[in-house]
């Protein structure tokens, strides 16, 4: 569904993303993990259209969208959330979500109806009249999710949607994400919380220092030497193995 091939992004000397490739198949949930500063959000920004790549292509449903503006990508069905939540502070929850809903309908009543439904889907049904600025971080994350969902996307890019949530809040959000997948939305998610990645993702890509160093099933990827070393440092994989043998 989404082919992001050989994407490179340079910021005056700093190579943030180096020839990275991701293929997102339609249906399964794909994860993008990697240590802090690996370039994950930069990669996302290029896929979503907020940054122009220095090299590489982005293809969505067999159409080249590499230089298309973000709002046009949204109209194609490619929606994203932001790592640092960006609510429309002055509007209430319903109106926030309605902005997304207006993508597919011009009728205000219909948009608000859709907004209400989407809010209920993510568990914000009882806070529709609250101002976005009055929500907790967990609420804002859900609002972020609901807004993107209201655009009826085919592919949803989630940027650390679980960051800042406590374990019970995470536990509550996971089924929502699964439900979104059940309803036919493909998901590509950046995530740090391994529990969620293992739980949700069918495929995982690992980005480290701008380069894609591994990809595949979560369990396999997590035991990959290169991946362990990316997180824990050079020689860590061998050390862990040695300690494991020593304990045995």
């Amino acid at each position, binding site marked *: 569904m989404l082919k992001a091939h050989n994407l490179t992004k340079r910021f005056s000397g700093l190579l943030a993303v180096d020839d990275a490739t991701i293929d997102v198949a339609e249906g399964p949930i794909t994860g993008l993990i990697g240590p802090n500063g690996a370039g994950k959000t930069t990669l996302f920004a290029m896929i*979503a259209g*907020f940054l122009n790549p220095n090299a590489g292509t982005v293809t969505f449903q067999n159409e080249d969208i590499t230089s298309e*503006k*973000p*709002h*046009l990508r*949204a*109209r194609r069905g490619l*929606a*994203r959330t*932001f790592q640092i939540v*960006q*609510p*429309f*502070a*002055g*509007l209430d929850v319903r*109106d926030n979500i*309605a*902005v*997304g809903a*207006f*993508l597919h*309908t*011009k009728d*205000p009543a219909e*948009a608000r109806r859709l907004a209400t439904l989407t809010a209920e889907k993510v568990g914000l049904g009882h806070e529709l009249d609250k101002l976005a600025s009055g929500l907790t971080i967990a609420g804002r994350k859900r609002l972020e999710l609901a*807004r*993107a969902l*209201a*655009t009826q996307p085919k592919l949803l890019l989630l940027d650390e949607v679980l960051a800042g949530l406590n374990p019970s809040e995470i536990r509550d959000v996971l089924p929502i994400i699964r439900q979104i997948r059940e309803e036919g939305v493909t998901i590509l998610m950046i995530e740090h919380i391994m529990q969620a990645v293992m739980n949700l993702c069918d495929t995982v890509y690992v980005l480290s220092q701008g380069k894609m160093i591994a990809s595949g099933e979560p369990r396999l990827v997590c035991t990959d030497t290169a991946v362990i070393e990316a997180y824990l440092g050079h020689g860590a994989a061998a050390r862990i193995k040695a300690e494991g043998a020593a304990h045995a």
Partner: protein
Amino acid sequence: MKKNFEFIAALAFLGVVGIAAIAGLPGNILNLLIFMMIIALTAQGWNVLGGYGGLSSFGHAAFFGTGAYTTTILQTSFGINAWVGLVCGVILGAAVGALIGFLSFRAGLKGSYFALITLAFAEVLRILANSWDFTGGAAGMMVSINNGFAYLQFSDRRWFLLILIGFVAGGLLLTRWLERSAFGAYLIALRENDQAAQALGVDIFKIKIQAITLSAAITALAGCLYVQNFLFIDANVAYGSWISIEALFAAIVGGAGTMLGPLIGSVLLLGLGEITKSFSGGIAGVDLVVFGIILILCVAFAPNGIRGFVADLWYRRKSRGKAM
């Protein structure tokens, strides 16, 4: 239900003014009200771009003056009917808005830079109007007196006030549509957070242009009506910074991005102006000093204007009541 309250309150206010006018008011009060409605209309125009769109323009005079000059020139130099002139003024004003918007937004200007460039555009137009013969040069232009509906001039000023009230009510309807429609939602979204808006499919360039065009059209309309009442304009009246400042003052102090804001603001502006004039004994400038101070106080203590301030108090009392 909550949203309709403002609309009804505003209509009620206009209704009261209208009835008072018909019943009979002293001439100077009538003049004041006429001027107030013109400012209210201009502020309503400013509010679309500056309030709902969050793009503060310091040069709305560019649209006001274009409307005024267009209708004056058409009537005086070409003998065209006043109403047709009015429509043309609105269209040309809107076109100027679209042009300024296109240039400014394509360059990605916002915030202070946008305010500066709108100021510059208005000044350029003022200097041009002041130099060209075709706009009367420094002497300005007059519209000849012809009373009658077709000329949009009335010996009985009450008619004019009623027409103005009608236009302001139209502005209210437009604002109401804005607050509910997809266009309005997109405009507010891009004001609040333009990155998030783009991610949701909002074409922010297009929406900004549409907003400035609408804003300019309404302000140009006010300019046309100004001419019909005062029958004289020159470059400083039409394109001078006074109207840019009064429009933005009324909208901001009244409550930017709200329906009642422009009305409250223009009432305050004119009411205060009269009060300070009576106290200051004719020293020029005292009323504007008061306005400036109020603007600063507003920025400091009531960033959402009077209407916002009142709404916040209301909200707080409601939630305090609930907590108990």
